[in-house]
């Protein structure tokens, strides 16, 4: 039973990987990667890594791939020719590099002489790979890597916002011509998205001049961030 499942999931994973590389449209590449990740989660389950398999399906195949689909739809997944522009030599060279890498990896892992490599692995306790076991390890032995990883995620989130924001403020000209009642009632610098990224406050000049009572508002709003 385990053998059948292994071969099904393994062939699915390899087919998905080939699909990612060989399909011309980036959108279909993303879909192939989703199927590859699902098959890989099945392999993780066969290796008694239940928590990692669940995290793989939820985080990877769910969240990260949705991010990919959004970016492909935004950038516009234009088809690209698969081969290099000039000559076929570079492609042949890279395929040869891939073959050499595969042989080297097989030699390094399968030929390592590890005694357990031809077995099903050592017997493991019942909570091996469960959320309980992983959680205990993460909060005792590996507490520092856990915290560093969370900090890394925070840095990446801030970095993505800084990288992908629209330069020169959030509001375009037609956005500035449109006002709501909240724009007139709210004091300056009380937290709109436009102000957060350095944009101008959406308030007409006449209304700003007619409302000098706001004490916190400086004379000039913050200059929009320019391109470096």
């Amino acid at each position: 039973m385990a053998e059948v499942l292994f071969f099904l999931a393994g062939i699915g994973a390899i087919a998905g990987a080939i699909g990612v590389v060989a399909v011309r449209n980036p959108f279909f590449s993303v879909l192939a990667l989703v199927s590859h990740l699902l098959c890989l989660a099945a392999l993780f389950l066969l290796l008694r890594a239940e928590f990692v398999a669940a995290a793989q399906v939820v985080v990877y195949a769910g969240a990260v791939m949705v991010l990919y689909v959004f970016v492909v739809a935004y950038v516009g997944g234009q088809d690209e020719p698969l081969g290099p522009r000039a000559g076929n030599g570079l492609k042949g060279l890279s395929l040869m590099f891939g073959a050499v890498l595969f042989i080297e990896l097989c030699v390094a892992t399968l030929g390592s002489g590890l005694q357990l490599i031809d077995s099903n692995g050592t017997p493991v306790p019942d909570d091996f790979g469960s959320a309980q076991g992983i959680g205990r390890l993460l909060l005792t032995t590996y507490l520092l890597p856990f915290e560093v990883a969370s900090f890394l995620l925070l840095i990446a989130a801030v970095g993505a916002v800084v990288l992908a924001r629209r330069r020169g403020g959030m509001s375009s000209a037609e956005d500035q011509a449109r006002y709501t009642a909240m724009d007139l009632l709210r004091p300056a610098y009380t937290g709109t998205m436009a102000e957060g990224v350095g944009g101008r406050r959406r308030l007409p000049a006449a209304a700003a001049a007619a409302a000098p009572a706001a004490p916190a508002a400086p004379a000039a709003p913050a200059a929009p961030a320019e391109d470096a």
Partner: protein
Amino acid sequence: MDIGWYLAVSALIFTIGAGGVLTRRSPLVILLCLELMLNAANLALIAFSRMHGNADGQIFAIIVMVVAACEVTIGLGIIVAMHRRRLPIDVDEMRELQG
């Protein structure tokens, strides 16, 4: 199944990912191939974790997933910024890091 079979699958997936990084030109697809390579490494880590009966390798795999998510976030942010500035989405034409 023997652990060796899992390692062979992992090596094959890693090779496919490396070939994709070398041959494709769209940075989106290159990021996808990087994901393939990271996942192959994850599979090897979990196979070795099962082989030794020690769950530390699974912690490694989780940390690798976190790092992969960060890398995807930054990479896609760069691609969106390139698209905003009307730069070509092609690594052959984007040879210089200077803006």
